[in-house]
């Protein structure tokens, strides 16, 4: 085989791999969206499964809003998620900076600590926390979710932030000191602007982690007025019958914010994931 022929063959294989992967990702999403736009009789017609709606309808979205207090879930989800993301960003800037810029006693141990906390199964923490929150009267509050989402997302975010800080040359900081800035001023005026990609990445990690979480939501929250979006949607799964149309409509709405966010900041997220995970 000549080299050009070989190259062409490789390109054909590549094209098929890319196409195949695209289909793998798209088909389940397509199925969710298309189900959400079908009428209910069409959805549960076992004789004839349609790959494209015979009748387009928004009735599932309408019944979703009728059955559930969606705006209240949206409100709860937004508050908890935003609060979590902002606090995680602030704390991981501090922690990441400390770990990146200083040599100090116990640093190795500290890094190990952040690694191990990433490995702890969430259910191990949820059960005792549930008892702890009950005793403190914090069950069924947004605060309980905020605390849980913060601690579960912090370890990875601190390590990610640290590797972003390590990429900034120390000379930049030294120059600021020479000009008479103190540590805090240097951090806020010189380093943070350069750190923009890292901050975006960490914000998105925490946002996605908190927005999508279901288990802790079902445990810490027990009245519908405090439900977040996933917990509210889960209530559509009955013991004997599942409202698939409304559930798929709810799924589409739940995925939109994080999906859109991801498409816009994909570059930063990819950067953050690789630096945070590989190095530590």
């Amino acid at each position, binding site marked *: 085989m000549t080299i050009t022929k070989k190259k062409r063959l490789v390109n054909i294989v590549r094209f098929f791999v890319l196409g195949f*992967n695209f289909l793998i990702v798209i088909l389940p999403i397509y199925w969710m969206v298309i189900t959400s736009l079908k009428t209910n009789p069409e959805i549960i017609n076992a004789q004839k*499964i349609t790959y494209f709606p015979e009748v387009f309808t928004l009735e599932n979205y309408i019944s979703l809003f009728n059955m559930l207090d969606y705006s209240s879930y949206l409100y709860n989800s937004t508050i908890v998620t935003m609060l979590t993301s902002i606090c995680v960003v602030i704390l991981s800037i501090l922690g990441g900076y400390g770990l990146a810029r200083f040599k100090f006693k116990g640093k190795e141990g500290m890094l190990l600590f952040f690694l191990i906390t990433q490995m702890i199964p969430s259910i191990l923490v949820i*059960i005792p926390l549930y008892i702890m929150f009950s005793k403190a009267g914090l069950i069924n509050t947004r605060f309980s979710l905020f605390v849980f989402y913060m601690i579960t997302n912090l370890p990875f975010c601190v390590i990610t932030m640290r590797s972003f800080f390590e990429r900034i040359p120390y000379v930049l900081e030294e120059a600021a000191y020479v000009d008479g800035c103190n540590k805090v001023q240097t951090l806020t005026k010189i380093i943070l602007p350069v750190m923009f990609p890292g901050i975006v990445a960490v914000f998105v990690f925490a946002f996605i982690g908190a927005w999508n979480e279901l*288990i802790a939501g079902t445990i810490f929250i027990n009245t519908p007025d405090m439900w977040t979006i996933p917990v509210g949607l889960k209530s559509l799964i009955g013991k004997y019958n599942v409202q698939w149309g409304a559930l798929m409509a709810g799924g589409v709405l739940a995925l939109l914010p994080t999906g859109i966010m991801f498409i816009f900041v994909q570059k930063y997220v*990819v950067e953050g994931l690789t630096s945070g995970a*590989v190095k530590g």
Partner: protein
Amino acid sequence: MNPKDSRQNTQRIKMKTMLEPYLFILPVFILLLFMFGYPLINSIIMAFENYKLSNINDIYFNNFENFKKLFGDSDFLLLIKNSLVYVVLSVAGQFLFGLVLALALKQDFKGRGIYQSIVFLPWAFSTFVIGLIFRWAFNGEYGVVNDVLIRLGIIDKGIAWLGTPGLSLAVIIIAMIWMGIPFFGIMILAALQSIPEEVYEAADMDGCGMWQKFWLLTIPYIKPTIIITILLRTIWIFNSFDLVVIVTGGGPANYSQTLPSYMYTKAFSGYDFGLAGALGTLLMVILGLYAVIFLKLSNYDKAGDF
């Protein structure tokens, strides 16, 4: 300023610079230490107690009762087997698909940015919704998977995927592979892109073929990334049980239950916190062993110092 003052001053500055790093890290560290440490210790204590949420006023130490109950559970071996099958197949699937995707994405092409945004999208999706999609697609009566397989002539009549031992776990694994391909793809792609182009040029001049280049250059270069990604994902997948809860609820009869999902069920359906604590302690032992293996294989202590 007399000498004594100035000495005190330098001492104070020295103290300040010594304390400085801790000022940055301590807020996070103390928060995490307390919020992870306290629950973990409590969970160990709980493991030795008769702690039922249905009878909260009657909590007492019962020595190893919970552990006896756990190891005596007729489903215990099944749970271990399920966890192993689930973790190994999910990691293997994610890795293989992720590797192939990353290799295909390595060379730039028109529209690569948009393409990446789409194929990496499942990373940003909620496990809950992904679980719903797969539960719906594999539905025994109205599911699209059965329909496609029948049309292709692979099966004659619909399979009750979620109600059949073995198959229900397979659905969970398929969903887990689907949602994890992007992470492997992202990590391996980044590693591939860090290989200097000259290495390949040199290999070309030496007359290396494609396979040789792949096995002798590409793989050794990305090996550290592969190892660390596999290690990280293994523990993450082992811990993650939302898919089990959403897709099958562990059914039929625990055939798709893993250790963490069983712990969840015991605690919040059976309200037996003592037994859940015993399971939790077992998970901690597994985690501890795993962490040691992780540190050995990933050379983490060396990597931490750069």
